[in-house]
């Protein structure tokens, strides 16, 4: 392992030892974070998978009904029928922090227009439209809440996957590069300093010998 390019001095040694301590501590913290993230991620991704499978199934079902509705009715009538929705929806967004991953929390808000003779969510009269359209819309409305949930879970999973990858890179960099490098360098400086010390002592002894011989 390559060592850092530093002057082998006592000051540098203290500095490096401090850095090593920080690195080890940081590594431990990041590793804990990674473990915790992973645990949460696995729970969440399982939910994501189940949710997606069921939402897809329900959506396809709704689309099938809609397709039939389109087949039996002319597109003019369909478009006319659904031109003015009785409902207006909007979302409220909150941001939740899961292990430093900022993830969205959606909340659906339905603003229903008050109408006395309105039956359910259907914005059209029943005269010109087929039952399949009613079905399609009924199914779509039923799946909507779960679609919002899916959006929230899936987005969180994506963001978490990103964060996990980033954390893993950091952990690896610390574990396999930074920490060994620092350890090697500390060892190198210690050895160099000891060597200097020995050299110094030998020189002193030699000088003393010479001085005593002259005297």
């Amino acid at each position, binding site marked *: 392992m390559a060592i850092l390019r530093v002057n082998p001095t006592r000051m540098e040694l203290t500095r490096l030892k401090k850095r090593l301590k920080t690195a080890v501590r940081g590594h431990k913290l990041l590793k804990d974070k990674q473990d915790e993230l*992973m645990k949460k*991620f*696995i729970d969440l*991704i*399982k939910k*994501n*998978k189940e949710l*997606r*499978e069921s*939402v*897809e199934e329900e*959506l*396809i079902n*709704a*689309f*099938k009904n*809609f*397709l039939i509705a*389109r087949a039996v009715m002319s597109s003019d009538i*369909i478009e006319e029928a*659904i031109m003015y*929705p009785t*409902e*207006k*929806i*909007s*979302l*409220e*967004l*909150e*941001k939740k922090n899961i292990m430093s991953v*900022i*993830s*969205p929390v*959606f909340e659906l*808000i*339905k*603003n229903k227009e008050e109408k006395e003779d309105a039956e359910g*969510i259907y*914005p059209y009269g029943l005269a010109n439209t087929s039952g399949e359209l009613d079905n*399609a*819309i009924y199914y*779509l*409305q039923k799946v*909507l809440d779960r*679609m*919002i949930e*899916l*959006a*929230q879970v*899936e*987005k969180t*999973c*994506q*963001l*978490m*996957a*990103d964060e*996990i*990858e980033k954390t893993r890179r950091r952990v690896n960099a610390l574990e396999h590069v930074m920490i060994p490098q620092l350890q090697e360098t500390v060892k190198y400086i210690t050895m160099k300093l000891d060597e200097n010390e020995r050299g110094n002592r030998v020189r002193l002894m030699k000088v003393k010998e010479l001085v005593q011989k002259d005297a």
Partner: protein
Amino acid sequence: MSMYKIGVIGDKDSILGFKVLGISVFPTTDMRKASQTIKKLAKENYAIIFITEQLAKDIEETIDEYKRSVIPAIILIPNNQGTLGLGIDGVKKSVEKAIGADILFGKEGR
């Protein structure tokens, strides 16, 4: 806290029904237009954009741009022809990215 909106992009026959629920519908079959719509919606307070897989498969780059931001969440949905399996693929990709191996779907022998 401001209000956010939901949008759907896809072919008209599939997504028109969402209009009844009060969701903004953007019917198109052209990939360039779809990608422009996503960019437009992302700037306009749309928190969730549903897009059909049939459209999404050609504009992956545009969708990937928004993967790292908290909103909008771009979610793939099947259209009336059924699913292409892209949505579930996306979930799989997240797993592979995070864990390095596919642990959820491996049992199904893909």
